[in-house]
C-alpha cells in the first residue's frame, strides 16, 4: 500500500536544519580537505613552515599567476619504487581479501545457521576483537611470530624444527596481520546478508534432487553475492592504504603505498609528494568506493 511518510508531509519545518549541520560539517572537514590535498600536490617543497610553496602569486600589476608544479606526479610516475609499491599494495589487498573470504565465509555461514541463542554468543565473540585495539592485536602477532616468539618456541620444543622460522618481517606476517585485523569486517556484513536467507530454499532444492554442495553453489552463493561484495570492499579498500600492519609486521622491505605516504610525510617532510600519493591513491580507490555504495543501495532496496 502506498503511503506518504509523515516526515515528508510535515517536513519538520526544521527538515532542512536537521541535515544541514552534518552536511556542513562533512563539507568542511571531509570534502574541503581533499581539495586542499589536491592543491598541495601541485606545490613545491620549501624549507618553510608549512613546507610547501604557494600556488598563487600576485605581482605588482595585479596579475594572478597560478603555478601548477607537476613534478610531484612526474616523480611518482617515473620512479619505479612507487609504481612497485602501488602494485604490491593492490596485490596484498586482493590476496588478503580472498583469504578473508576463505576463512570468513564458512564462519559467517556457520553463525547464520546456528540456533538463535548460540548465534548471539558467536556474534558477540566475533565483535569482541573488533572492539579491542587493532594496534594491540597486531602487536600480539609480533610476539607470536618473532624468532624467539611463541610459535617458534613451541615448534622447537616439540622438536618439529631446529632453527627458528623467519616469520616476522615477511610478506607472510603482513598477510596474517591484515587477514586477522579485517576478518570481522568481512564476517559482519556477510552474516547480515546470510541471516536474511530463506533456508527453506535449500530444503526445496534438496527435495528436488540437489546435493548439499550443489545447492550451496547454485543457491546460497548467488544469493549472498551482495554480502560477499560488501564485505570484500570493506576489507579491500582500506587494506590498500594500510599503514600500521606493514609498519609493525612487514619489515623495512614491505612496499605498501600507505607506508610510503607516511614516510614521505613524516620522515622526508615532503608534503607535496605525500599529497600527490594521496591523490593517486584516492583516484585508484574511488571506483571501488562507488561500487561499494552501489552494493549497499541495492541491498537496502532489496530488503524493502
Amino acid at each position, binding site marked *: 500500500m502506498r503511503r506518504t511518510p509523515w516526515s515528508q508531509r510535515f517536513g519538520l519545518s526544521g527538515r532542512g536544519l536537521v541535515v544541514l549541520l552534518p552536511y556542513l560539517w562533512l563539507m568542511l572537514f571531509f570534502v574541503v*580537505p581533499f581539495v586542499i590535498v589536491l592543491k598541495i600536490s601541485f606545490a613545491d617543497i620549501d624549507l618553510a613552515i608549512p613546507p610547501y610553496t604557494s600556488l598563487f602569486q600576485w605581482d605588482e600589476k595585479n596579475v594572478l599567476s597560478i603555478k601548477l608544479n607537476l613534478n610531484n606526479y612526474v616523480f611518482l610516475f617515473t620512479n619505479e619504487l612507487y609504481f612497485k609499491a602501488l602494485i604490491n599494495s593492490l596485490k596484498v589487498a586482493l590476496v588478503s581479501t580472498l583469504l578473508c573470504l576463505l*576463512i570468513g565465509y564458512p564462519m559467517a555461514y556457520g553463525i547464520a545457521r546456528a540456533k538463535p541463542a548460540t548465534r548471539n554468543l558467536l556474534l558477540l565473540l566475533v565483535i569482541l576483537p573488533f572492539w579491542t*585495539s587493532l594496534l594491540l592485536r597486531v*602487536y600480539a602477532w609480533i610476539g607470536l611470530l618473532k624468532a624467539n616468539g611463541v610459535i617458534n618456541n613451541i615448534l622447537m620444543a616439540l622438536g618439529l624444527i631446529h632453527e627458528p622460522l623467519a616469520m616476522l618481517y615477511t610478506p607472510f606476517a603482513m598477510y596474517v596481520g591484515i587477514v586477522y585485523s579485517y576478518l570481522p569486517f568481512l564476517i559482519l556484513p556477510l552474516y547480515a546478508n546470510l541471516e536474511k536467507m530463506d533456508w527453506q530454499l535449500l530444503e526445496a532444492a534438496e527435495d528436488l534432487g540437489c546435493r548439499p554442495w550443489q545447492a550451496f553453489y547454485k543457491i546460497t552463493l548467488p544469493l549472498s553475492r551482495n554480502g560477499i561484495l560488501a564485505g570484500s570492499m570493506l576489507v579491500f579498500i582500506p587494506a590498500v592504504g594500510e599503514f600500521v600492519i606493514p609498519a609493525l609486521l612487514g619489515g623495512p622491505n614491505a612496499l605498501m603505498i600507505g607506508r610510503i605516504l607516511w614516510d614521505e610525510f613524516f620522515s622526508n617532510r615532503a608534503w607535496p609528494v605525500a599529497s600527490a600519493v594521496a591523490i593517486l591513491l584516492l583516484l585508484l580507490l574511488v571506483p571501488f568506493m562507488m561500487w561499494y555504495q552501489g552494493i549497499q543501495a541495492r541491498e537496502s532496496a532489496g530488503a524493502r
Partner: protein
Amino acid sequence: MNQRRSVFIISCVAFGFAFLYIPILSMIVFSFNASKLVTVWDAANSPTLKWYRSLLSNEEILDAAWISLKVAVINASGSVILGTLAGFGLSRFTNFRGRFVLNAMATAPLVMPEVITGLSLLLLFVALEQLIGWPAGRGITTMTLSHMTFSMAYVTVVVQSRLATFDTALEEAAMDLGAKPLKVFFVITLPIIFPAILSGWLLAFTLSWDDLVISSFTSGPGSSTLPMVVFSKVRLGVSPEINVLATLTISVVTLIIVAVSFWMARSNRIERAT
C-alpha cells in the same frame, strides 16, 4: 540441511575463532610472565604482577591515556549528535537537495584508508591556521575534530539501520493524539532508539580511543594519545607493559560489551513483543 550441522562448517567456525582468539589469549598469558623477553616463559618467577605495577606507575602511559580519554569522550558525544541527525535525515527524508552528496560523504569514511583522511585533515588545519589564525597549532582540538569526522560515519550507519526497522505507526499514532512532529521525535522516537544511539556512542568512543593514524597526523607537541605511545614502544619490539595494557583493555571491553549486549537483547525482546 536443517539439523545436520556439517562437520566441515563446524570445524571452520572453530578454526576461525581459534585464529581470532589465540593471539589475544597469548597476550594475556604472557602479561604475567616475569621475563623481560615477554615470549620466553620464565617459569621460576612467573606468574607475577610486576609488570602491572610497572604499567600503572608509568607516567608517560598514564598521561597519554588521560588525553585519549578526553578526546574519546568529547568525540563520542559530538559524533552521536552529528550521526543521529545524519542518520535520521538520510533514513526519513527520501528526497532533498544534496541527499546523494550527504549519503556519499557520510559513508565514505567507513572505507577510506586512514592515511588519506589523516593527511587531508592536517593540511586543512594548516591552511585554516594560515587563513584565519585558528586552530593555533595542532593538539587536542584538532584531534577531536578529526575523530568526530570519521566517527560520525559509523554512528550514521548504526542509527540508519535502527530506524529502518522502526515502526513509523508509533510516530503517526503520537501525532494523531496531538503531538507535533518535533515533540514526537523527542518523546517517542528518541527514547525507543536510545539503545542504538548508546551503542553508537560506544563505537565512536572505541574508534577514537584506538585510533593511531589520524591522531598521528593531527596531534601536536604534548598531545600524544595512548595508541601513539604504544606504537612508538612497539616499533622497537615487544614490551611486557604493552601485554599488561592489552589484558586490561580486553577485560574492560569484554565487560562493557557483555553488559550492553544483554541490555540491547532485553529491549529488543520488549519491542518485538509489542
